[in-house]
């Protein structure tokens, strides 16, 4: 707050240099731009976000743990072919088609809702007829079977629209690179390819479909879009002959083919999603272990001493130490399925459920990272994505949203919403810092009208606006919530949340109490943190102790109401963004709060340096005294004039100071 340097500029020596500086509005804009740029650099180049994402994600994990409904968990089952199952079933690796056929047959006997096979079958080998038959039998029994592919595979007898292939079209394909033949006519092919990008919070993105390109002979009759329905393979032919590649064959076109991912295909079949609602997903990883998994899996509970755990949290990555080793999705092994009879638990796990059949073999890859669990077999990614779609429906969290805007050239430009949102959050953070800590003249004048309002009324107003935002989010009224956020920002700015003028000077005893609190509160907080971490886990400790503890510390001990108000504003903004209809993934609020603190420190540091410069300038008024720096002295005057604070608000003489600044902020 740099109160030590608070003095009206008109009274300060060397004011002449200041008067040649930029206007208050220009200063404000330059400061805004500089802070925004610093923030953008820190966020873009992994500065703040890189270090704080694990902490932010740990808090998000905690929120998910207590708020994410188990609707999808009850509808989803993973059937896992484990390494040990190979021995138990005397099965070689890779697993034979006969064994897969037996598994499909066994699953179908329990009448699941759908089966996804997370195995890619590329070659015709002995026993394939048995698997084909088992899949067709399941299909006949009303159980759709989805099989993973790494590229779209061609049914030799059909087009993708399900129509017999016309001879002319078939003839046109001669000489082109033909896709491998599709081996399972009764199954639907879905893409097992993982999305290449990570979403804003570092959680793996789950694509709703994967695009594949291939060069095919030009055939005007076949141009345009072809579709195999909502769940299957979709074709889109891109016009333009011989686009791109070296040595292009001008008689070919690039055909883009889209393949739906398993979770989206299965949820769409369930009627959970309309075609227009499918976008890439930011998976919310369920946090917890179902009872059925704890029965046969190891290390579902955390082990180790509290001290070692505490040290590893702060010395290492907080996510790493809190990751679970048993999955969220209810799981049954292939051995359990095939070596059991009349087991009621199996019926409960499979009947009417979407079954994701995958493998966990050694040395085969196919493992995914998640913020909640240690590395999981890849099939859990599909299962968790399906869980999200069942639980959240069309309000599942999007990794990205794009909106189209017309460009100057008349074309439509696609702008990613996450980028816009992150920029807006940063701008809001910077704006609050500048408007509250150093308000421009019009804001000062306007704010002066609110100075006589009692603190209790101020808090009432802020509370009401906050309640408006919360209620709006609850009723999915995000436009109203966004309006409430804007109102909250204006209120924070106008009501001036620095300690009020009415507060009596602190007594000696009060000073001692406050300093003692500063010592005792952290000790109590650490003790509470360890206790809750031990009992309920790190997420709960962060949610119940660390976050509210730090918040209260800043408010009660530090009396920093501006921090409290800004933190609340950012949290509410994040909630609005996660809620319908925006439905973006969780934002890294901790990074914005950290940047808010950093911005305040930067402003203070800039002011300190500017004051130091002015003192030197007052002693050495002639530019020639500055030696080689003489030519740049006018520019330096302007730079430090921008750095210098123009407003100083003290607790006791607030009104008079504001009046003084109102006078002095105007350039002479």
């Amino acid at each position, binding site marked *: 707050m740099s109160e030590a340097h608070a003095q009206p500029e008109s009274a300060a020596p060397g004011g002449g240099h200041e008067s040649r500086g930029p206007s208050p509005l220009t200063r404000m804009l330059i400061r805004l731009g500089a802070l925004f740029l610093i923030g953008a650099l820190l966020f873009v180049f992994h500065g703040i976000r890189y270090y704080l994402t694990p902490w932010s994600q740990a808090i998000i994990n905690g929120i998910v743990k207590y708020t994410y409904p188990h609707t999808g968990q009850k509808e989803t089952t993973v059937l896992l072919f484990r390494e040990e199952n190979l021995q138990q*079933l*005397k099965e070689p690796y890779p697993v034979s088609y006969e064994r897969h056929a037996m598994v499909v047959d066994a699953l179908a006997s329990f009448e699941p809702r759908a089966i996804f096979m997370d195995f890619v079958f590329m070659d015709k080998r002995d026993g394939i007829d048995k698997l084909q038959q088992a899949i067709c039998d399941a299909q006949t029994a009303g159980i759709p079977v989805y099989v993973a592919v790494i590229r779209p595979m061609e049914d030799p007898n059909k087009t993708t629209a399900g129509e017999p292939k016309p001879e002319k079209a078939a003839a046109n394909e001669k000489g082109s690179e033909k896709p491998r033949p599709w081996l399972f006519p009764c199954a639907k092919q879905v893409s097992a390819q993982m999305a290449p990008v990570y979403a804003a919070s570092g959680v793996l993105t789950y694509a709703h479909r994967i695009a594949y390109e291939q060069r095919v002979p030009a055939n005007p009759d076949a141009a345009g879009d072809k579709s195999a329905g909502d769940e299957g393979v979709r074709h889109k032919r891109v016009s333009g002959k011989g686009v791109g590649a070296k040595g292009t064959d001008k008689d070919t076109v690039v055909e883009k083919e889209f393949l739906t991912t398993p979770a989206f295909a299965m949820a769409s079949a369930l009627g959970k999603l309309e075609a227009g609602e499918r976008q890439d997903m930011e998976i919310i990883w369920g946090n917890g272990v179902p009872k059925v998994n704890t029965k046969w899996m190891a290390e579902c509970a955390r082990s180790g001493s509290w001290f070692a755990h505490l040290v590893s949290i702060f010395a290492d990555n907080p996510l790493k130490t809190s990751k679970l*080793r048993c999955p969220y999705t209810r799981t049954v*092994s292939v051995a359990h399925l*095939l*070596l059991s*009879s009349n087991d009621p638990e199996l019926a409960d796990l499979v009947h009417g459920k979407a079954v994701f059949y995958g493998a966990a073999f050694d040395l085969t890859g196919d493992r995914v990272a998640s913020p909640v669990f240690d590395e999981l077999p890849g099939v859990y990614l599909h299962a968790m994505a399906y869980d999200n779609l069942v639980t959240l429906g069309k309000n599942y969290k999007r990794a990205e949203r794009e909106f189209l805007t017309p460009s100057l050239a008349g074309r439509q430009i696609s702008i990613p919403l996450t980028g816009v949102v992150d920029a807006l959050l940063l701008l809001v953070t910077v704006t609050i810092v500048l408007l509250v800590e150093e308000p421009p003249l019009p804001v000062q004048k306007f704010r002066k009208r609110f100075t006589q309002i009692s603190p209790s009324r101020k808090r009432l107003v802020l509370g009401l606006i906050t309640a408006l935002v919360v209620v709006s989010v609850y009723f999915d009224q995000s436009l109203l919530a966004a309006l409430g956020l804007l109102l909250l920002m204006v209120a924070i700015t106008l009501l001036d949340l620095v300690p009020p003028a009415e507060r009596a000077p602190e007594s000696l005893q009060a000073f001692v109490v406050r300093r003692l609190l500063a010592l005792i509160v952290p000790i109590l907080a650490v003790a509470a943190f360890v206790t809750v971490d031990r009992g309920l886990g790190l997420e709960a400790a962060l949610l119940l102790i660390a976050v509210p503890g730090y918040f209260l510390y800043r408010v009660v001990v530090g009396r920093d109401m501006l921090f409290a108000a800004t933190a609340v504003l950012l949290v509410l903004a994040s909630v609005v963004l996660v809620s319908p209809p925006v439905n973006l993934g969780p934002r890294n609020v901790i990074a914005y709060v950290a940047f808010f603190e950093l911005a305040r420190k930067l402003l203070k540091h800039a002011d300190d340096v500017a004051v130091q410069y002015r003192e030197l300038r007052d002693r050495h008024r002639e530019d020639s005294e500055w030696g080689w720096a003489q030519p740049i002295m006018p520019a330096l005057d302007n730079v430090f004039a921008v750095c210098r604070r123009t407003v100083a608000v003290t607790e006791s003489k607030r009104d008079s100071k504001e009046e003084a600044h109102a006078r002095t902020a105007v350039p002479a």
Partner: protein
Amino acid sequence: MRGLPCRRSALIVFVLLVTAANAAEQRPTQVTKLRTPKVALYNCPDGAKKLKEVTQQEFVGKQESEFRGPWLIDPKKEVDGSLLPVTIDGKEYCVRLYSVVTDTAITATSECGALVAANTPKSAATRGVGEDCKPNKK
């Protein structure tokens, strides 16, 4: 004091007898239902060849049907783990465990302490095929 080892032995024998009796009680003795509309009967012990398909009607049907249930389970016969040896009309067959309902539930309990989510060490090698286990013979 001399009587103590005798008592202990008697107790051990009693416990063993009770355990054996319980085990005998819990072992399934017959197939009581078919879980699927058709159940395939395979050769024993490996189940490589499908010999016959039995329908629900044949299982619950008239007295003269040779495949009428319940089917007795042969506990002594050693077969592939996923199969159940049954005797039907004096002939021996194997059925897949999941396709039938037995008078006592059979639950695979061999999987305890499985570690599903774990950071496995990275390896710069590709898995070969067919080691350790032999493929099922037809």
